[in-house]
């Protein structure tokens, strides 16, 4: 059939219209995407800022704020795959592997006008190496720091140490002025001087802290925002209300139960789901009988319905866990599936153990944490089916933490997140007795795993390190000292006018890239 002339005409017109409209539409969209200068951002969070001294804190609330005011030699890549330049423009390892040389960027100044040189870098790292600093372990491999000239820093390590560049990206190694610009550490903690995108304006402890843009920031054109304010708001409903009401622009960690409502709030509030390194566990105290027996632990692992936990506790925002490393790490062994939910298998494991008829025990839960309460109740019901009677003991966070640290508990909940983009920190934290938490409170000791971990740290080849890390995870999975529960993302709710917000896998925000549209 011949196409009608009118039909052809119409098609032609339509095509012409489409072709002529689309460049306009594209440039229109691009115009909206051009960052605008100005604006004041308010972020509401549950936790309180404790200190602005980089070598002091361990709490994320302080860490993520410090990172806005200070710079590090290197910066983690947003997806966690490695590190990129920040204050250091290039870096290399010596042929014998025993030292790393960093070349500093020229023209960087602190907010007091002082230029940033290698003297400041050496001083900063040495503060964190002091035994009083809680993150001194991260610089434990460093033997000596030398400064051949004002823009070169050489870090000598006791053994070849592959994770060093990642360690130079951690907040604890933020660069402060030499000798804290003449202040005592305590005074500096309240009047910090950094080279970062923002500088402190005012701090009302326990209430809020405010920063203004650093006009001398070395990254041209950044930050876009005029000021950022972090407010401490304990109640998750209040935080959600503040974002909906326009009083705040970003809500850190809205409650899982509120996410669906926020997503359906009609565009005024958006929910951002970002990859995180967080892994949650059921911690089992391997020093308390009968948990010293691996079959008992395997029985418990087989009684946990992880898929249901993700649905009920996380409202679907998570994935059941297998390996103990996070999928965001390059060392993650995705072949490990953990122990599937199978009550018959659980009974079989228990039958092989010294307590085939079950036993009584307690699970310790942090008060005020409804997710832990719910999970404990689900576990209580499941374990009862194989003859294990659980009582739920609720303690306030300080007491519960104490109990975990000192091994005064049977089972409890714990989690880890990484502060660096290298697997070294967490592979030790969870798998090694001396890794900082007694193998995530299980008090599990495995010399073979420790050897593999130490070996991997001395090698540069990522493939070789991955092989060793996979061996570690597989051995650990066989022994199940703890039970990995799920991997969760980081969730933020933010106003529709917020652009460029992209928290890293390591948790830091980098608000220098954020801009507000009108």
């Amino acid at each position, binding site marked *: 059939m011949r196409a009608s002339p009118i039909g052809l005409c119409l098609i032609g017109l339509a095509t012409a219209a489409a072709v002529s409209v689309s460049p306009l539409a594209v440039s229109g969209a691009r115009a909206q995407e051009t960052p605008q200068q100005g604006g004041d951002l308010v972020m509401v969070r549950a936790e309180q800022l404790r*200190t602005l001294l980089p070598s002091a804190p*361990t709490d994320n609330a302080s860490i993520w704020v410090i990172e806005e005011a200070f710079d590090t030699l290197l910066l983690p890549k947003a997806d966690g795959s490695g590190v990129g330049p920040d204050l250091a423009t290039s870096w290399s390892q010596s042929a014998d592997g025993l030292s790393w040389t960093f070349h500093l960027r020229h023209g960087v100044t602190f907010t007091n006008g002082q230029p940033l040189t290698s003297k400041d870098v050496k001083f900063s790292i040495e503060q964190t190496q002091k035994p009083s600093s809680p*993150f001194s*372990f991260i610089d434990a491999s460093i033997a000596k720091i030398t400064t051949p000239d004002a823009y070169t820093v050489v870090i000598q390590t006791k053994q070849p140490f592959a994770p060093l560049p990642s360690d130079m990206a951690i907040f604890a190694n933020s660069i402060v002025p030499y000798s804290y610009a003449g202040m005592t550490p305590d005074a500096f903690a309240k009047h910090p001087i950094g080279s970062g995108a923002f500088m402190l304006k005012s701090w009302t402890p*326990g209430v809020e802290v405010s920063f203004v843009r650093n006009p001398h920031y070395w990254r041209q054109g950044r930050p876009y925002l005029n000021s950022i304010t972090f407010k401490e708001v304990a109640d998750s409903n209040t935080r959600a*209300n503040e974002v*909906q009401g326009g009083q705040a622009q970003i809500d850190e960690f809205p409650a899982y139960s509120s996410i669906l409502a926020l997503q359906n709030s009609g565009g005024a509030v958006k929910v951002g789901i970002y990859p995180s390194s967080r892994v949650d566990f059921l911690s089992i105290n391997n020093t308390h009988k009968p948990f010293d027996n691996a079959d008992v632990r395997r029985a418990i692992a087989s009684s946990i319905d992880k898929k249901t936990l993700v649905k009920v506790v996380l409202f679907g925002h998570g994935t059941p866990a297998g390996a103990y490393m996070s999928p965001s790490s390059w060392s993650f062994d995705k072949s490990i599936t953990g122990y599937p939910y199978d009550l018959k298998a659980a009974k079989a494991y228990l039958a092989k153990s010294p307590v085939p008829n079950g036993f009584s025990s307690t699970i310790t839960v942090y008060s005020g944490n409804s997710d832990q309460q719910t999970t404990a109740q689900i576990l209580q019901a499941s374990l009862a089916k194989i003859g294990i009677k659980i009582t739920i003991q609720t303690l306030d966070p*300080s007491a519960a933490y104490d*109990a975990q640290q000192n091994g005064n508990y049977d089972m409890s909940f714990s989690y880890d997140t990484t502060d660096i983009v290298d697997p070294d920190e967490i592979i030790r934290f969870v798998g090694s007795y001396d890794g*900082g938490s007694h193998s995530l409170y299980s008090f599990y000791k495995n010399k073979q795993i420790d050897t593999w971990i130490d070996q991997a740290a001395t090698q540069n080849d990522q493939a070789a390190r991955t092989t060793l890390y996979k061996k570690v995870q597989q051995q650990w999975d066989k022994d199940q000292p703890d039970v990995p529960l799920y991997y969760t993302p980081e969730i933020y709710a933010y106003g529709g006018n917020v652009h460029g917000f992209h928290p890293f896998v390591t948790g830091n925000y980098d608000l220098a890239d954020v801009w507000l549209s009108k």
Partner: protein
Amino acid sequence: MLRFLARRFLLLIPVVLGVATLTFVLMHMAPGDPARTYLGDRATPAALAALRHQWGLDQPLWRQYLTFMGGLAVGNLGQSMFFHHSILTLLAIRLPPTLWLMGMATLFSIVISVPLATWMAVSRGGIVDAGVRSFNSIAQGTPLFFTGAVLIAIFSLHFRWFPVAGYGNDLSQHIASLVLPSISIALAIVPFLVRGLRGALMDALSSEYVSFAKAKGLGRRSIWINYALKNAAITGISILGIQVGYLAGGTLVVENVFAIPGMGTFLMSGILNRDFPVVQASALVFALLVIFVYLLTDIAYGLCDPRVRVK
């Protein structure tokens, strides 16, 4: 009057000693190491020991107690272990919002209760009575955080008349931020006050002196103000005094829901952090607040009721 005040101030001393000692003992009995809480998992034993020494926690208990009491005697409340700021500085930030909240809540309680109680007393039963009683039951039975959440949803999110939460930066913002929280608190006090006032008003209205006043030919307004309300006020003040006394320590829930940086949340975070100086100072402040409120109640009572003054 002066002797009365002087006696009251002298009574403060044993109260302060008692509260300080009790809080000290309770906090140190609770498990949980503040140094460990502060430094986290990977703190070396050296770091923990250094911090404990800095905070004076390695001293024997009796010496820590004496140091604290000694400091108290000269007005030195110490430093917050977690915030490295002096307690007095922190109290100067946290106390005013709580005081404002208590004051505005008291004001709203009176403003809501007096007309309601008067209306009930005048109507003497019927639909008004039933209506106000239902309102009282609902107000008393509704938890504070729910009332707060509903008020926020309607007046902040929907009508946008008030801020959603927070305390604001200047006086006008402070007051605007405290309206809804104060009303939430007031709604918890109103049931008690309305019941008491209504009873007292009805008693007054059926008393002999009011009958006499009516017989004398005094106007309705005059009878109400000079006879009924003034006599009912005595009962009202007693009830209000007790309720506001509870309030001194009870603002925690409202402060949490409305994100007001007051004494309630200050004490709560101090307890969770095991920040001993914060807890001890807050407990003392609360005790002093309660005593002060009772003192004000007694003075107001004396002002209203000349029979009490004669003593």
